[in-house]
């Protein structure tokens, strides 16, 4: 593998070459047709993984596994107000807040045996995103940054990694630097904000501004050869390429039909899922969409019901829609969270559930994953993992494996410390078929 110059980790070199080549020889921008062609040249073809893209739906706050994907119908004292309903797969049941999701479980692999060592939000969501514990001395790259670094971008101008409604601390490039950080989207309706030149500014003036700023930045960078200063200098080039891209329309969900938009439902998360599908179709490698508010210490059942209203229809629509447009087979759709919730229901907190990292559930679908499958078991009250334990690192290794990426490849940080996408995690290969 190392003999092939195309398989090196530093994707931008190749991409810069492609862009230059297109600019110089063809005299045209790499348009939407060129996107897939570039993708074919990308270093993806490691035999096992079929997926090219990831849509990573992060349930921030700690999604209750008991009220969603690991219900315990025989244990009334554990279930509280939640009941389990049948899905379209015989032995898979889900919480009654998820009627639409129940209809697509044949496409989904439920991992009920997730467990984490981290029981606080900051640490828990950090380790899910990076495979490493939170430290004061180093920032680890986020999963999306790793995937972009190892697999390269697919589209030369669109960002490799986009984060919708997410937090910059969890979607940063870490020691890979700013060019691997997610392009952030605050509002799915608005798409990538400020990606068009204002009407008041002519193209000539815009170029002149950039050229002046570039001179100033080089001067400043010459005085302070600092990584962050350099990052901004490079981001300007990146941003301009993006603004000029034919495929900028990938960010515009207003281009979708009313029927499609309604299918996903209202709300930021739903529309974020729709945007994620559009971005993946146009060649974005990794899209993260966050749905917050799962921290249901207080009145868990009302809380979960509210969250599921946001999640249920959107998730079912996303899988159905991806399948319809032919992208489900190469898009790994992940549902992740930092931990589950306790089987105990705290009456003094109006029926609340506390954090529970020792057993929780995550989902995989698409991208070659077997559907209608459950992996791993928890005990009768969902407190402990009984079999098939999957650690956070195993989970991330499984995602990398699904993408055909070298999950055990070690890259060095600038401080010469070794890191890999899933730390020591091992993929659960039997989930793919």
């Amino acid at each position, binding site marked *: 593998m190392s003999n092939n110059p195309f398989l090196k980790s530093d994707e931008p070199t190749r991409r810069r070459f492609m862009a230059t080549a297109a600019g110089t020889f063809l005299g045209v921008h790499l348009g939407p047709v060129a996107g897939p062609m570039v993708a074919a040249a990308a270093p993806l073809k490691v035999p096992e993984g079929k997926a090219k893209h990831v849509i990573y739906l992060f349930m921030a706050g700690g999604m209750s596994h008991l009220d969603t994907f690991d219900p315990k119908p025989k244990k009334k004292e554990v279930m509280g107000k939640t009941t389990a309903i049948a899905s379209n797969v015989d032995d898979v049941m889900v919480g009654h807040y998820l009627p639409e999701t129940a209809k697509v479980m044949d496409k989904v692999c439920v991992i009920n045996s997730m467990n984490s060592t981290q*029981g606080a939000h900051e640490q828990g969501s950090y380790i899910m995103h990076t495979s490493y514990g939170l430290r004061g001395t180093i920032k680890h790259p986020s999963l999306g940054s790793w995937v972009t670094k190892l697999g390269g971008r697919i589209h030369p101008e669109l960002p490799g990694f986009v984060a919708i409604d997410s937090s910059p601390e969890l979607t940063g490039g870490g020691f890979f630097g*700013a060019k691997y950080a997610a392009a952030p989207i605050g509002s799915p309706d608005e798409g990538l904000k400020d990606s068009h030149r204002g009407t008041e500014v002519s193209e000539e003036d815009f170029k002149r501004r950039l050229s002046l700023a570039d001179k100033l930045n080089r001067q400043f960078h010459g005085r302070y050869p600092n990584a962050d200063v350099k990052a901004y200098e490079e981001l300007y080039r990146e*941003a301009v390429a993006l603004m000029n891209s034919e495929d900028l329309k990938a960010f515009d969900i207003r281009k979708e039909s009313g029927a499609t938009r309604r299918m996903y439902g209202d709300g930021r998360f739903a529309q974020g899922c729709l945007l994620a599908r559009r971005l993946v179709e146009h060649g974005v490698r990794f899209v993260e969409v966050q749905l917050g508010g799962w921290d249901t210490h207080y009145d868990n059942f009302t809380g979960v019901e509210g969250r599921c209203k946001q999640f249920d229809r959107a998730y079912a629509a996303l899988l159905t829609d991806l399948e319809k447009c032919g992208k489900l087979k190469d898009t790994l759709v992940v549902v992740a969270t930092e931990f589950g919730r306790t089987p105990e229901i705290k009456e003094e907190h109006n029926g609340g559930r506390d954090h529970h990292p020792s057993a929780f559930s995550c989902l995989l679908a698409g991208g070659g994953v077997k559907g209608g499958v459950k992996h791993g078991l928890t005990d009768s009250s969902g407190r402990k993992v009984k079999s098939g334990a999957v650690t956070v690192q195993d989970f991330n290794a499984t995602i990398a494996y699904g993408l055909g990426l070298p999950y055990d490849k070690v890259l060095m940080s600038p401080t010469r410390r070794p890191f890999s996408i899933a730390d020591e995690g091992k993929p659960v290969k039997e989930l793919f078929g």
Partner: protein
Amino acid sequence: MTGCGLLLSGLVVFAGLSGRAAGEVDPGSLKKHALEIDRQVAEFYRSRKLSVPEVADDATFLRRAFLVAIGRIPSSEEALFFLEIEDAGKREQLVDYLLKSPGFSSHMSNWAFDLVRVVDRNRGRSHNLPYRHWVREAMADNMPWDEFTTHLLAAEGNGWDPATAAVGYYTRDKGMPLDNLSNSMRIFLGTRMECAQCHDDPFGDTERFDFYQLAAFTHGQGFMAEGLLRPLYQEVRDARMERPQENRAMEVLWDQVIGMSLDGGGSGSISLPGDYQYRDGDPGEVVGARTPFGRTVRMSPRRSEHDGRRKLADWVVHRTDAQFAEVIANRMWKRVMGKGLYEPVDDYKPAAQSPHPRMMALLASIMVDLDYDLKAFQHTLLLTRTFQFATNPEVSKVEAGDDFHGRKIQRLSAEQIWDSLVTLAVGDPDGKPRRGLDTRIHVGNRPVLVGTKDMVQLSREVLALKTREEMRAYFDEFVRATGDSRQNPRGRNEMAVMSSGGPSYGRGAMVRASELPSPAPRDHFLYLFGASDREVVEAASREPNVGQVLSLMNGVVQDKLVNDPDAHLYKCLEGAGSAEERIRRLYISILNRPPNEREMEWMTDELDARGGQGIRNVVAALVMSSEFLFLQ
């Protein structure tokens, strides 16, 4: 104020401020402390046989002092005045001026909001606005840090009453008292106990048992008068379809009065959790409060006591040896100097184990000597020569800490960038009134009883009721009084109450970040540049991303500044005849320094080529420059 009057207005700005004391603290003692710090630093250089760094030039000092002390760049007027006067004492006078600016507390509020996680709204119908207001006022009054800490940790009572609004520190975390406690330890003592919430810490010496003993101090965080209202609440709630108006009235009493109160003062005992796994206790066993280090404070599980939170506050502030003082001194050092003596600042290292033991001990003793007056402490640091050291382009030689080799270059915080842009767009933002607190009673979305009764009075009345019968009678009367909007007194009284509350700034307002909704909405400039979502302690980020650059090129910066002919910045050009003079003024306004020769050439070429449009291009380029985004 026009460009022609810069010098004159500058004189007005600075007039009478030089030589006076900051607050009530004796300026002589601040200088004495500053000198002690500088001696300590000099000693460090001598011992390492290193040469002492140069002092930064006036322009660098000016920009640094403004951004560090009050979180924004100087206005054109302020910049020009400072750069043009020749007075040996002008740096000291500038520091004095900055600490008297309302901008100081604005900048401190952002820091406090990030640290104690102040958000405007909770999920559900209760909110934290009175608490936010309380923290903002505490910063404006420069409340000493020990007092602030005690108010938060020992809080109890009515969330609307200004005397007890600090209860928001706990009610903000309704249902998660253990997380709240972990955060308290991290914020005030730099002790990390998150791990011990669920298991013995494999890397430290904190055991889960210790954590629960500590949690016992704060245990029992109920709502006031909840039992008195609950039956009636259930009754109204169950019939909410038939009794919508009563249901709306109930939301006021249940969510906004009772739901924003904090009952009891901490019971001093707690049950071990159901999954307790060690031999030193059994699941469900009741344990009494006991502090894990410092001078031990205990409470008995058998006695019924109600002052656990007060005892905890007293222990944190007075019985943890130097830890409380060292932690806040190090936090302030980082705030002013850029790097903590040790980092992370919330992972405490006793002075003896820190990279600079004598300096750490000195800073803690100054903090105590100044009675935890954070303004005076920062004043001291700002007066040091160490603060004035020239920028060092190298990374710190001490991993994640200060190496004293000159200031490290660092990107500005989201709030510093925003507040600086606001300064350019609308001029000095510190004359505007602070965000107010709306104390009107809202039934549904409709303000009621305006001019007659507000939330403070209503909540006091409700929380003073003694029986369910009284509660029911009060509720019936409240429903009757607020039922018919035509009966509500309107007119002059309404204005009176609203104006006493102060303005409420929406997300689009061009005001200081401290006055905007908290946290910043996810599509706001502030969030894009890494403002904290205030869910976890100090979660702000300075990481670059492509969205930030797009925003500088095409977004709010263009709309509100570059392309807006009415932007305050352009006023500095009035009366400037030559192209050189215009460029010089733009440089001083935006980068707070005159242009060098090469830059002057680039920019005059631009004006020659593009005329009036060229001015905008220069402004755009300066704001897009890294120099604008970084602190030197």
